[in-house]
């Protein structure tokens, strides 16, 4: 195994960082279709191909629906496949994302998170990926450009492990991460190549000497069992994720310990749970509050599917109060992350902390540290946890 002895720091946007991961992975086929804020991922990657830095075949499809359809075709054919999208693009391809998962296609999908229409809006929230949470994919959330890069590389290996074989979606927040430049440590090309290895398809359609029928018509006598196999695949993804973290830490020195980052959690009385870039704001807020003597910590899940319910419940055991911040809402219900954590606490903890849910940042609404601090104040004041609350909303 090759290990990165020196990692070059580059000033890259999250989109560029994801494109670099794609360049280093050098997949066989990448179907592309533009949509803000994902577009710079495929543009940067297309330039890498145009410059001969990798030799992937790009298919300029005519819609995201066809992007995912071509991805499934290429993946079943036996190729390593990646693509990228956002928001409406994910909504349009969603029919085929479910099928990609059921056909066990290890496609890596980079997502520049963006609010779903309507009304139309190009800015970040997580309504797009949350819409796809039941599709059967692994879902990973990156806080920053570095994580976006690292998770893309881990995703490829995770998806293609024969115990898993499902698509992996890697989310980075639209604009906040996709379009913001920060220093990113890129691994040397050969280290990445070595880490991801070769894709070994089990039943490639192009093996004409061993013909297979793929995507047949399945009636009530078998459908249920096939869905159960997808449950097992996502269960296996937990094991493989943990194994890969060991390997990835060895080559990069960056450790994605467990399924979530625990920031100043061990002695915390109050906990914020939040995905993606807002975790950065949360860390700043926590540091400020701790200087005032308030013991606050953070849980930032990297892995949303399969949901690490038991691990998160255990991490929250004994806390005074927990506030789950959701950048999406299941209309008619509460936030998707909250619903998961609420179920996890109910399932695993006999004595539960007070649990709050805040909806924030929809359609790109800014969420500064003061708003997150107000959540901690609410927890200190023991406000009513049976009320769904909103951050930064004019009412």
């Amino acid at each position: 195994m090759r290990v990165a002895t020196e990692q070059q720091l580059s000033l890259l946007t999250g989109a560029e960082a994801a494109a670099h991961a794609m360049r280093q992975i050098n997949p066989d086929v990448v179907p592309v279709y533009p949509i803000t804020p994902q577009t710079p991922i495929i543009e940067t990657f297309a330039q890498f191909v145009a410059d001969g830095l990798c030799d992937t075949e790009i298919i300029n499809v005519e819609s995201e629906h066809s992007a995912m359809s071509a991805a499934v075709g290429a993946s079943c054919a036996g190729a390593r496949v990646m693509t990228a999208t956002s928001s409406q693009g994910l909504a349009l391809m969603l029919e085929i994302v479910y099928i990609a998962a059921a056909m066990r296609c290890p496609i890596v999908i980079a997502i520049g998170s963006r609010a779903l229409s309507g009304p139309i809006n190009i800015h970040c929230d997580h309504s797009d990926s949350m819409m796809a949470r039941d599709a059967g994919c692994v879902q990973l959330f990156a806080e920053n450009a570095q994580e976006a890069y690292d998770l893309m590389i881990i995703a490829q290996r995770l998806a293609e492990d024969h115990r898993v074989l499902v698509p992996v979606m890697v989310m980075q927040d639209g604009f906040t991460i996709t379009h913001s430049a920060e220093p990113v440590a890129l691994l040397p090309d050969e280290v990445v190549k070595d880490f991801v290895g070769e894709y070994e398809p089990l039943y490639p359609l192009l093996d004409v000497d061993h013909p297979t029928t793929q995507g047949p018509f399945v009636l009530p006598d078998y459908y249920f069992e096939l869905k159960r196999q997808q449950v097992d695949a996502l269960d296996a993804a937990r094991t493989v994720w943990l194994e890969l973290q060991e390997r990835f830490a060895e080559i990069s020195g960056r450790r994605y310990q467990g399924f979530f980052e625990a920031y100043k959690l061990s002695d915390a009385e109050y906990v914020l749970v939040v995905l993606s870039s807002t975790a950065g704001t949360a860390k700043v807020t926590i540091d400020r509050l701790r200087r005032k003597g308030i013991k606050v910590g953070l849980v930032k899940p990297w892995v949303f599917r399969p949901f690490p319910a038991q691990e998160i419940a255990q991490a929250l055991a004994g806390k005074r109060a927990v506030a789950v911040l959701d950048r999406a809402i299941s209309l008619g219900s509460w936030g998707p992350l909250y619903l998961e954590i609420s179920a996890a606490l109910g399932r695993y903890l006999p004595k539960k902390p007070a649990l709050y849910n805040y909806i924030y940042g929809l359609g790109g609404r800014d969420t500064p540290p003061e708003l997150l601090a107000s959540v901690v104040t609410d927890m200190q004041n023991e406000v009513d946890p049976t009320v769904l609350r909103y951050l930064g909303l004019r009412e």
Partner: protein
Amino acid sequence: MPNTKELARREEMHQRFTGAHALCAGCGAPICVRTILNAIEEPVVVVNATGCLEVATTRYPTTAWNVPWIHVAFENAAAVASGIETAYRVLRRRGKISREIRFVAFGGDGGTYDIGLQALSGALERGHRFIYVCYDNEAYMNTGNQRSGATPFAAQTSTAPVGERSFGKPQRRKDLTEIAAAHHIPYVAQASISDWYDLARKARQAAAVDGPAFLNVLSTCPRGWGYPTDQAVKIARLAVETCYWPLYEVIEGRWYLNYIPEEKLPITEWLRPQKRFAHLFEPQNRELLHQIQQQVDEAWEKLLRKCERYEAL
């Protein structure tokens, strides 16, 4: 081109698509599939849109296919084929496979004229080397005869039914073969399950061109059209003899007519044996029959003007 006898022998030998399927007696689709697959020399990979052909040939865990076969969804067979063909090119370039393979996508008219038109257009425009075959039975037959963009004017369907205030479908069918030709692809042809040798020749030609090929094949449906199951080929033949469904091809943008009937039969010869047109023979609908004949005549004249020459079968 092998002769008819040789093609028949190959049917026996190859069995790329076997009889182990649940398609109706008198269905045109299996004739279309067997003829095309057996006419192609190279190994093939088949892509299938959702529809009768898919549902009736792959009831898990059984299959009627002895060649690699894939189905993903209804509207995306051409896009799936794009992905497979691209994977094929890159895996060959990277030395992971060496065989010469052809790619054939089958979709019904619903999956091709309507819901799959965008994916088809995109794939044709991008120039993937594959053959798209529309087995056109002129309505959504898998779900029980609902009208599609391919359903002919005045035909009875379950979503444009005949009634006190309706004579069936009030619109004309769209001309998908012409739409495909407008993509400037190397090969486009219209064929019928009734003209076996013509269809086989067109399949071979489609497999030989270095780029996309599109075949629009008239394919009968006993349930939707309403004819005795042993009349499938005869009904399809009448569509050709009445010039309702001309056999022609567009090679590199040049139009060739493949068949001119010795005596062009009146359209009623094609309409009368089919229950979906039965209402047209009631006295109050005489004008509709006249209109249909006019439509056929005009389309035929237009086609004759387009075709540079007549290419005998």
